[in-house]
């Protein structure tokens, strides 16, 4: 009796209140996709009236917040580990929304054409083994370019970052020494170099320091008009980062059904090797903590839109689109969301 009364009450209140409550969806996490999400969410609001509040607090903080269920979805540049997912009270799903490329941006006076790098050279620079721009390892890759005898200042992130994760993930795939001495993570114990805060911080230091090299997301290199070099991919081709080559990276890697995978060092001939998905993370079962079905559906609609029509905004902002095979996997994942055990 009490139950039915409650249910009835709930139905009445949802009918009236959900209309208002469902209008705002909250998310938090990675700062890398923030410019893209701002644009996407502004457009989404224009067409549907649903507003999305996304706080760019960092991937780690986003993962913590979704685990604690204080947001509807989290943004993260790296997938959660199995261990982290076990700590969550429900099953979490990862859906990629865009592909980002990390580029080696540099400031070498007198060099006008894009320099060529290999993964090994980048690893040796950040290990402190290559210390001047006219080191034989670099000149051999760049015949016809006169490189100065300037010392190399390796600039890196001082804050924990998904960008660092992607870069280190790539370096440990191409350099055994990197793998054993440094490893992969959002924060590392760096053998050399100087730390700067955020993508814009690294870009700023590179810009103002002759002889500097720094790894930044493509969009920041472009915004700051910093020259960046090509990186030799697994097939041996020198590829300059751009939307096409970054997107191609997702086509040379076997994407599992849950899409949690590293895209670095892709086997695709045209792929740019230092790339990664950026994800949104949410609960598969949406009925928790007093969420209404309307709220759950609003989230589902938003996510579905982000991996379909929303993709139209990716390239203009220098984020690569999801290849169609990945987009369909993403749609399947979103389609598997449930509410109270039933299909949403």
């Amino acid at each position, binding site marked *: 009796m009490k139950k039915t009364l409650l249910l009835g009450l709930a139905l009445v209140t949802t009918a009236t209140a959900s209309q208002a409550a469902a209008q705002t969806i909250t998310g938090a996490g990675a700062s890398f996709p923030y410019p893209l999400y701002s644009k996407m969410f502004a457009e989404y609001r224009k067409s549907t009236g649903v507003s999305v509040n996304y706080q760019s*607090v*960092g*991937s*780690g*903080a986003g*993962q*913590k917040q979704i685990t604690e269920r204080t947001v509807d979805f989290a943004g993260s540049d790296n997938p*959660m*580990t199995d261990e*982290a997912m076990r700590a969550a009270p429900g099953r979490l799903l990862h859906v990629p929304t865009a592909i980002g490329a990390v580029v080696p941006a540099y400031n070498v006076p007198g060099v006008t054409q894009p320099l060529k790098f290999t993964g090994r050279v980048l690893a040796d620079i950040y290990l*402190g083994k290559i*210390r001047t721009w006219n080191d034989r390892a670099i000149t051999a890759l760049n015949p016809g370019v006169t490189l100065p005898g300037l*010392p190399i*200042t*390796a*600039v890196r992130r*001082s*804050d*924990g*970052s*998904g960008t660092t994760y992607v870069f280190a993930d790539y370096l440990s795939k191409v350099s055994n020494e990197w793998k054993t001495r*440094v*490893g*992969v*993570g*959002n*924060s*590392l*114990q*760096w053998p*050399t*170099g*100087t*730390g*700067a*805060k955020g993508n814009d*911080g690294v870009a*700023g*230091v590179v810009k*103002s*320091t*002759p*002889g*500097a090299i720094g790894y930044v997301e493509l969009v920041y290199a472009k915004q700051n008009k910093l020259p960046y070099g090509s990186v030799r991919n697994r097939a041996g081709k020198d590829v300059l980062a751009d939307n096409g080559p970054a997107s191609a990276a997702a086509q040379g890697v076997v994407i599992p059904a849950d899409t949690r995978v590293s895209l670095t060092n892709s086997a695709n001939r045209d792929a740019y090797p230092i790339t990664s998905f950026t994800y949104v993370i949410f609960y598969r079962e949406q009925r928790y903590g007093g969420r209404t079905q309307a709220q759950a559906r609003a989230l589902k609609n938003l996510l579905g839109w982000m991996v379909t029509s929303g993709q139209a905004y990716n390239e203009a902002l220098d984020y690569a689109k999801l290849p169609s095979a990945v987009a369909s996997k993403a749609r399947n994942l979103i389609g598997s969301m449930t509410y109270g055990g039933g299909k949403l």
Partner: protein
Amino acid sequence: MSEPLRPRPAPRAALSGRSDRTFQLLILALASVIVGVFVLSVYQLGRESWPALREFGLGFYTERTWNPVTGQFGAAQMVIGTLVTSLAALVLSVPLAVASALFVAEYAPKWLANPVGYLIELLAAVPSVVYGLWALFVVAPILGRWQQGFFADPANLQVYTRCQDLWNSGQTTLQCFFVPSAFDGRGLALAILILTVMILPYTASVARDVIRLVPQDQREAMYALGATKWEVISRAILPYARAGILGGVILALGRALGETLAVAMVIGDSQDIIKSLWGGASTMASVIANQFGDAQETLHRSSVVALGLGLFFLSVLVNFLARVVIARLTPRGIQ
């Protein structure tokens, strides 16, 4: 009505007695809020940092390795970085601050003293992110260009490469301490510089006020003995104001120990041992700012919180020591 024997107090006194009680309770409540906040912070910090302290014990504060990848966390380098930056900034800023306070209080004509005093206080009102940006975008490039220009000379470049080799093999020399590890201007020296400017107004304005409070008789007595202005300052004014000035120094030290954002922006964030005055370092606060947001593993997050706990106790310890020093230095007459 039932107690006619009790002497009736005067109505006004009763009123005043009651409001006194209320005020007393109010003050007591406010004071215990402060104590409560203190206790709660220690409790929260302790609870959150427990996993790290259980794992590493007190060795957490004496071990040097900070490697989030392998899950080894030791904060010794950050404790050293915090103490070095704060104390060096203090050493640089106190003479400047006392000199400016003396100028404003004793030497400057009134039309100049007021604006100068006002400007010094204004320095304290500048948000720390502004100092950080100024250091990052104005001072660092200038320092960087100077470093680059100096080491462009082949002879100096040789020193530079030799130091790089030494550092890579884990060694160092005194000479290398003055060689930058990278030519970007950022690092320990810039952090100290920026802290110096940031804490200057605290010491300066407190010092100015206590110097002004030195009784006029004290000065006049000294002049009457035929002392020069300098003798008056050094024998009559400064000894009298000593304790108050030190109070300002403690305030400044507290600010320097906990300063986060500006330092995090310029210190270059290296958790290695401090190899060079110009090279990267890190402080406890800067590591908290840099790593808390993205610390994903429990142990990492908890280690960052443990840094906060350490910083808390470090501040308490430093303040306690400073109080002991003040008590010793206060002239007996004005205690």
